[in-house]
């Protein structure tokens, strides 16, 4: 049972802390940095460089992420670097990179406004990406059609011309049925398929079983609606397909993404102005973190770490000796901690204790470690487990650098505030640890780091700070300072010349795999999780301001289920999954259908929803199935006063 207490706003960290005899005590910067470095040295000396793991920060700048992966690869000598992209859009990056060679959304926001058909799949953009949704509404108000695919009728769905209410975890059957209908009605873009894709025949066979009636049975979406969306998408001049975590936070998230990409390949809805495939990224710089190489399998600019020419280039620049093989991703790092293969981690601005699924398990794994260094602006629950805590400056307003957004636009981040006395810049802290580990790092400013990155990543070469300033940000790729690329990706697929067209995009005949956490008589309700407009992730930042909209954590139920369980709005109930048990008050939401319930994860200090979520992960991208847990709801006995 979790303890209930009010979420108090966090107070900024201003003094380094070190753990002595089990207790965190204040220390000087020199002492804390010495301890941090000494612990890394000790563990690497004893267990080799792969005993080290870096949790880099999707909230921090591109420059910080570049330095974090450089620290991991060049100073420690491992590729075990990753960030919380693993808990959200890693499947999108993996899927897009597999088919097209680079893991970014393909369109710009302006193109969304100019689309004539927009499909939002597993996305509550109205609340989770409100300003993106304004671009969608611009299009809708100009006459574009909006289709929303979601198990819940959200505030996004209420704007849709048609809402497709699918059962949780049946995205692949729905996508395949749409594909089959497009093929059967001969609405495919044959010349695009012939020129720019491969694997079409095999794909046709894979979707063949998913007739409209079969799909209706599995997904719960009426056959007529599936048919309508199929025809509308295939016939649209400029069709946009956007998705969020409803697609990725499943045990087969990458396959889900691939099943959506198939639809664009079938109809040629990619690589042209206004048509595209766009994952809406959940964190200010989660796109940039991956772009900067703070992922275990790619060097900065998505360069392949297993390519000897790539590693040779970086070794020459850094004077290093990089291992030319993939490191562990965040999920694998957590597993390695459990096995005892990973013994030390450097966690920058991440809060895995509260953000990972099945968090009790994560705590157990972190407790196995010999040495944890946490660098953060707050003493988070994760920092409370550390051996050394280093107070950092807040990236977005106390440092200079860049972030990269969902449309691949790199924009300048500027220092507007002085950090509180005692807190230091992330890159400065990292450099001071690197120096103690014998690397001749001098403290570099944001712009110097960026220029080093530009010299090594062709995607970013043309983006000087001056140019970013003048143009209000630049979308990658930008290989030259003298020109700008189109606002959309993969235009090459439409080239007549096969050489210019390059690598064909491959259809993915993926298979349906229902959620791992099965519904049974004992656990009959499907719990799905998500965000609300005024709150954010584990609440560490958003709890800092008072919101008139905030109602705290609730268990949202359909009116029918509330009646069946004999519970009223506001009444506390017991929620049990195969992993744990929590209590929460009930909220009635008529956008839910019977059997489906919803919670956020914004108030973990009050009600820790990730005690009951499942850690079944996508084998390709390592993202957990936050969107589909099986639970039981019990009315609590009446309290006797």
């Amino acid at each position: 049972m979790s303890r209930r207490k009010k979420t108090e706003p966090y107070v900024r960290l201003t003094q380094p802390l070190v753990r002595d005899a089990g207790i965190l005590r204040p220390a000087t910067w020199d002492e804390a940095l010495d301890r941090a470095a000494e612990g890394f040295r000790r563990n690497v000396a004893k267990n080799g460089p792969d005993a080290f793991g870096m949790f880099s920060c999707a909230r921090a700048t591109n420059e910080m992420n570049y330095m974090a992966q450089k620290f991991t690869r060049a100073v420690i000598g491992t590729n075990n670097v990753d960030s919380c992209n693993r808990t959200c859009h890693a499947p999108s990056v993996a899927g897009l990179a597999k088919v097209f060679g680079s893991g970014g959304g393909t369109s710009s926001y302006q193109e969304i406004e100019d689309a004539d058909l927009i499909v939002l799949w597993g996305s509550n953009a109205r609340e989770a990406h409100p300003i993106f949704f304004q671009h969608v509404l611009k299009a809708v108000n100009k006459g574009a059609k909006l289709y929303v695919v979601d198990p819940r009728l959200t505030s996004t769905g209420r704007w849709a011309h048609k809402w497709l209410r699918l059962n949780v975890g049946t995205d692949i059957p729905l996508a395949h049925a749409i594909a089959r209908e497009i093929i059967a009605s001969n609405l495919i873009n044959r010349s695009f398929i012939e020129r720019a894709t491969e694997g079409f025949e095999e794909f046709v066979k894979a979707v063949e079983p998913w007739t409209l009636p079969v799909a209706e049975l599995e997904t719960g979406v009426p056959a007529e609606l599936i048919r309508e969306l199929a025809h509308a998408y295939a016939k649209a001049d400029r069709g946009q397909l956007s998705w969020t975590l409803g697609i990725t936070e499943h045990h087969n998230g990458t396959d889900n993404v691939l099943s959506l990409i198939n639809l664009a390949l079938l109809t040629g809805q990619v690589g042209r102005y206004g048509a595209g495939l766009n994952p809406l990224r959940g964190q200010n710089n989660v796109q940039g973190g991956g772009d900067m190489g703070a992922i275990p399998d790619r060097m900065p600019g998505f360069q392949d770490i297993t390519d000897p020419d790539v590693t040779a280039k970086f070794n020459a620049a850094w004077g290093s000796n990089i291992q030319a093989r993939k490191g562990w991703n965040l999920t694998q790092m957590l597993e390695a901690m459990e096995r005892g293969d990973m013994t030390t981690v450097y966690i920058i601005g991440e809060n895995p204790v509260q953000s990972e699924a099945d968090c009790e398990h994560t705590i157990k794994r972190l407790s196995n470690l010999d040495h944890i260094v946490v660098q953060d602006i707050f003493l988070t629950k994760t920092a409370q487990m550390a051996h050394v805590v280093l107070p950092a400056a807040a990236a977005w307003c106390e440092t200079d650098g860049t972030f990269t957004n969902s449309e691949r636009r790199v924009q300048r981040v500027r220092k507007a505030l002085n950090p509180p006395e005692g807190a230091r810049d992330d890159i400065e802290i990292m450099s001071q640890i690197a120096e103690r580990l014998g690397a001749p790092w001098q403290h570099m400013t944001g712009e110097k780091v960026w220029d080093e990155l530009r010299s090594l990543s062709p995607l970013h070469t043309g983006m000087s700070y001056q140019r970013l300033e003048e143009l209000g940000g630049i979308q990658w790729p930008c290989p030259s300072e003298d020109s700008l690329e189109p606002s959309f990706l993969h235009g090459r697929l439409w080239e007549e010349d096969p050489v210019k067209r390059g690598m064909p995009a491959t259809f993915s005949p993926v298979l349906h795999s229902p959620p791992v956490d099965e519904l049974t008589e004992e656990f009959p309700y499907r719990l799905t999780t998500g965000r609300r407009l005024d709150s954010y992730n584990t609440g560490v930042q958003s709890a800092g301001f008072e919101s008139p909209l905030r109602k705290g954590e609730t268990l949202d139920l359909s009116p029918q289920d509330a009646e069946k369980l004999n519970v009223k709005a506001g009444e506390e109930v017991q929620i049990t999954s195969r992993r744990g048990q929590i209590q929460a008050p009930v909220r009635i939401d008529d956008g839910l259908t019977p059997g489906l319930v919803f919670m956020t994860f914004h108030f973990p200090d009050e009600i820790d929803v990730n005690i009951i979520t499942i850690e079944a992960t996508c084998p390709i991208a390592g993202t957990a199935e936050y969107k589909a847990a099986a639970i039981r709801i019990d009315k609590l006995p009446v309290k006797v006063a």
Partner: protein
Amino acid sequence: MTIVEIGLPKRLVEMTLDGESVRVPEGATILDACTAKGKSIPTLCYGDTLKPANACRVCMVEVEGSRTLVPSCSRKVEPGMVVHTDSERTQHSRKLVLELLGSATDLSTTPHVDEWMSACGADPSRFGPEAETKLQPTIVDNPLYVRDYGKCIMCYKCVDACGDQWQNSFAISVAGRGFDSRISTEFSTPLPDSACVYCGNCIEVCPTGALSFKREHDKREDGTWDESAQTQTTTVCTFCGVGCNLTLHVQDNEIVKVTSPHESTVTHGNLCIKGRFGWQHVQNR
């Protein structure tokens, strides 16, 4: 399938502006032409991110051949048009409009209005005490916004920003008719009971300070609001991945207000509740 118009390249149109020949893109307004030529025209209801409301009448200019003055913010330039922005007629009109607005409304927090008044010699007090502003109690019904309708000139910008031009929340509209018309939530409910989602996009466009952020309002009340001591730095929001540009207004190393650059292709000056208000965590020091 609906075909959405995405626009074609624009031709240039030639006109005469205060005796000078000017070429502007087809579809540009007289105000656009003035801005391009570095001429400053007073505006209140005009919003660079909004469709013209034609409500306030302070931007009126004279077009030769036109019986009446025309609003420069909405009148499109036509080939051969001859425009005077500083003629006696325009000055006279501007003076009277400012006097009428200033006599009935509290313009104490309207930027530039003092300069405009002195430039055209406007004296709002000349209508006597009968016409003086009727102060209304400021409405503070939530921790983020303050509404002070004694400062409202009924320009409709907040309604347009909240409505189908940007936010599409439709939390506020014009209620009543004639002298009774005013900006209101549905059934005049307090904001927390309305459709408001606290994006602050109405405040972003309010020209008079009738709508303001609670932090700014409180600092003005206790005399600690000092714009001359503030810096404005544009950075990127720390929440979701859309990448909204935030301009942080900082006084004494504290964020006191957040706006967004209107020319940003990401936001067009709009934000959500998190971007607009979600900064306190960095200064819980």
